């Protein structure tokens, strides 16, 4: 039985992508980070990565670093949103002027009202569309980070003798990755696009007697339904991941221990001092790799989230001004709700990945 388990473990070990090396480097994760991510990390991070398996480098990712990063991101997001706020406010002011003239202008006034609706809708959609694209590319960056780090984490897990846990976690994390990517691309993103389209058409058709606000509300309901369904499915997947990964390796751990990358299996209690030191190194890698992945996901997600929050704040404020000036602020409010959808999609995806990776790291034993 043990021989069969050992044989299966060997096959699994070599069938999985194991990019971690025997010298304990975690450079695969660092070098696999998306372009531009290096600039977001601390200045001497790369130098520190070459020392002590990157433990000192990870220490640089402390609270003060994240606080300053948050501050910088917030400053950039607000400075990006400020011209939008100014322009939309001026647009709304001209809309108010058009509306006030339009009330006394009869049919010409209605045409002027139409022009103001078109301009306001065009302004909003030209702000929202790039945001939607940036949001999708951020999701791609997060997926890229997971795809890069998954083989390394799997290899670390394998090298610590967690054969079943590593395969289970890798399989479930892959499933989560595929499910999130596909659902994001095939379901949530089109729903957001349809929502933007309905909001725009609703704004353009305002005053014609065609009321599309119910359609916009229905699309929002569909989005909420799908995102709730996806979250539920992913939570169940993660629950299974935890249960299966934690219960499966107890028997195997007693008899088999592996060191991966060097391609030399170390069996039973015959661990030499060198192997012991190596495994200690892997333990450090485990901690540093997990922190680096979490940091990378945070660095990729936080600026986009802050940008979305800033734009949403700007749109909500403009909607408020619109209501005060007597211009219909529903158009702007509808576009602000699209920001909510983008925020929900981004937060759900990044949290799911961070939690999944956390679960993966949590099942690794302490050496």
């Amino acid at each position, binding site marked *: 039985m043990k021989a069969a388990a050992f044989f299966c473990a060997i096959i699994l070990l070599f069938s999985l992508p194991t990019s971690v090396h025997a010298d304990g480097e975690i450079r695969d994760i660092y070098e696999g980070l998306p372009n531009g991510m290096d600039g977001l990390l601390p200045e001497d991070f790369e130098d520190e990565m070459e020392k002590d398996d990157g433990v000192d480098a990870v220490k640089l990712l402390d609270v003060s670093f994240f606080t300053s990063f948050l501050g910088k991101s917030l400053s950039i997001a607000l400075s990006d949103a400020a011209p939008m706020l100014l322009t939309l406010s001026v647009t709304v002011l*001209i809309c108010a002027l*058009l509306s006030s003239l339009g009330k006394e202008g009869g049919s*010409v006034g209605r*045409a*002027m009202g139409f*022009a103001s609706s078109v301009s306001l809708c065009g302004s909003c*959609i030209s702000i929202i569309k790039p945001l939607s694209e940036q949001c999708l590319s951020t999701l791609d960056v997060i997926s890229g980070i997971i795809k890069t780090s998954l083989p390394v984490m799997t290899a670390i897990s394998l090298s610590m003798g967690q054969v079943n846990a590593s395969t289970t976690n890798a399989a479930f994390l892959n499933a989560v990755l595929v499910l999130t990517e596909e659902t994001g691309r095939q379901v949530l993103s*089109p729903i957001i696009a349809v929502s933007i389209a309905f909001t*725009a058409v609703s704004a353009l058709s305002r005053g014609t007697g065609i009321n599309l606000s119910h359609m916009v509300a229905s699309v929002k309901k569909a989005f909420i339904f799908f995102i709730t369904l996806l979250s539920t499915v992913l939570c169940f997947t993660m629950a299974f991941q935890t249960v299966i990964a934690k219960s499966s390796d107890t028997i195997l751990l007693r008899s088999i221990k592996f060191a991966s990358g060097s391609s030399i299996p170390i069996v039973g209690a015959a661990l030499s001092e060198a192997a012991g030191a190596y495994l200690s190194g892997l333990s450090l890698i485990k901690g540093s790799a997990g922190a680096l992945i979490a940091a990378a996901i945070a660095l990729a997600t936080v600026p986009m989230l802050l940008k979305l929050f800033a734009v949403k704040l700007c749109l909500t404020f403009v909607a408020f001004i619109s209501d005060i000036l007597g211009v219909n602020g529903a158009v702007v409010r509808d576009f602000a709700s699209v920001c909510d959808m983008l925020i929900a999609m981004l937060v759900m995806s990044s949290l799911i990945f961070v939690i999944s990776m956390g679960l993966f790291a949590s099942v690794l034993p302490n050496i």
Partner: protein
Amino acid sequence: MTVLLKVCGCALVGALCAMTLKSNAKTVAAAVAVFSSLLILGAVIARFSGAVETVTEIMKESNVSDYGKVMIKALGVGIVVNTVGSICRDMGESSISSVVELAGKIEIVLICLPIISETLSLIKELLI
């Protein structure tokens, strides 16, 4: 403020002259009314051009300057068409007034068309 006072004064003088001349020389009264209306419109447009420049400069700072231009153009068309339509109605030519207003509406729709097509193409890009 001084411009506004001048406009109000011009309007009062024009209205008084037109009213006085109405009983004896209807044609001259109409001409006076038209002249004073156009004078006031010119003063308002001259006053408004400074504000338009400021708004255009603000709009230039962001990428939605085209939409602001459309609104300003629509506003301009609306003001001109409303004024001319009112003058025509005062002169008893309501049919001409209707045609002028129709031309104004068509002009506003034509001004909006590029933005409508741009918005629809953006929606199309999102959906495909």
